[in-house]
């Protein structure tokens, strides 16, 4: 009886262990494949065009290598996250937005870098601060279907004196049927909307004209 009892307990224990290992293995696989931050690009395709009525002014914006390497992670769908580089992916759109208003646009490493600002000849220096949120209405797919790209731009003169503070928000939506391998589509649309809004905001701000 004792032997039988031992056998039963042993058999139960081994099969239970195997089952547990299988479950753990599947969970680890699922964690590796699903519960991770999926990289996306939110680089704009359509950026503001150079204006026909550009102001004869030189502008610069601040973007450092550290800014470009800043990676953020926000929500996707199905409990997953997405990761991207908001500054790097916004730079072309930002530059295009400034070029839509001003005749000459350059990048400088800092608002206090007197030599770089003098070399650029810029009289207006734009310093962007970006915040983002994303979300997906789907529980089965990870690409975000809704994306908010919010930019605060502090503007300084060549002597680093603050002269304006602009705030623009870009929202982008995308449906599953539209992705076609472009998983950052909602983010891209948000970036495009933010760049367009920035052009309008600059043109509305008298001190920047």
């Amino acid at each position: 009886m004792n032997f039988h009892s031992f056998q039963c307990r042993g058999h139960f224990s081994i099969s239970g262990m195997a089952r547990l290992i299988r479950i753990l293995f599947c969970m680890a696989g699922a964690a590796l494949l699903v519960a991770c931050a999926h990289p996306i690009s939110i680089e704009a395709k359509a950026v503001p065009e150079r204006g026909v009525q550009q102001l004869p002014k030189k502008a610069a914006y601040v973007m450092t290598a550290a800014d470009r390497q800043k990676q953020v992670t926000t929500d996707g769908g199905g409990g997953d996250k997405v990761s991207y580089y908001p500054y790097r992916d916004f730079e072309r759109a930002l530059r295009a937005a400034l070029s839509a208003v001003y005749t000459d646009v350059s990048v400088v490493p800092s608002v206090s870098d007197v030599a770089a600002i003098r070399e650029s000849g810029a009289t207006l220096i734009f310093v962007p601060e970006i915040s983002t949120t994303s979300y997906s209405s789907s529980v089965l797919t990870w690409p975000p279907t809704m994306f908010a790209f919010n930019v605060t731009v502090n503007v300084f003169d060549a002597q680093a004196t603050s002269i304006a503070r602009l705030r623009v928000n870009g929202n982008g939506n995308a449906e599953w049927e539209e992705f076609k391998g472009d998983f950052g589509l909602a983010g891209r649309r948000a970036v495009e909307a933010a760049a367009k809004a920035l052009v309008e905001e600059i043109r509305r701000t008298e001190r920047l004209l």
Partner: protein
Amino acid sequence: MRFTAVLLALVVSIFLTGCANLVAPDYSADYSAVDALKRSGLAKSNVGKVQPEDAAAKVNLISLRGSSLRAGDTTFAGYVGRAMMSDLKEAGLYDANATRRIDMVLLKNEIDVSGFSEGLGLIEVQLTISDGGKTLLQKNYTVKTRFESGFAGAVAIPKGQTEYPNLVRELLAAIYRDQAFLQAMRS
């Protein structure tokens, strides 16, 4: 029930990237390098079509763990050519009618995401600057990049996808900072 849901999400996740028709994101320049070009007082140039134009050429094909990466409505050689043209326009140095011309041949073009934690990019072009019948410069430029990747295809494949513009940006910035290139563009 929960286990089934996890498995379903797993399968969807695999197919979402595994079967997708991947397109390289749009190119964005190293604007510090472009601004330096803008202030360098170089002569305006035209950019010829980058070879090979054949979409089936090996350098125009990139596979990311079996998923093919495309360059949108062009080839990867065309992507590099458009990128340089866009940079020269930004720097005020592009003129479609200029006698000075930049031609490139794409010799290597690889994004490798087979590693468990790191991906590799490799690109090489042969660049020729000519004016009329005179060759001012012929030089090969090679750039290698390393980027964080992952074991899972759901991470590695989009990482490789988003790396391509960065690889081209590094290549073109290296060209713009090269003294031999600047000398040939100035002469």
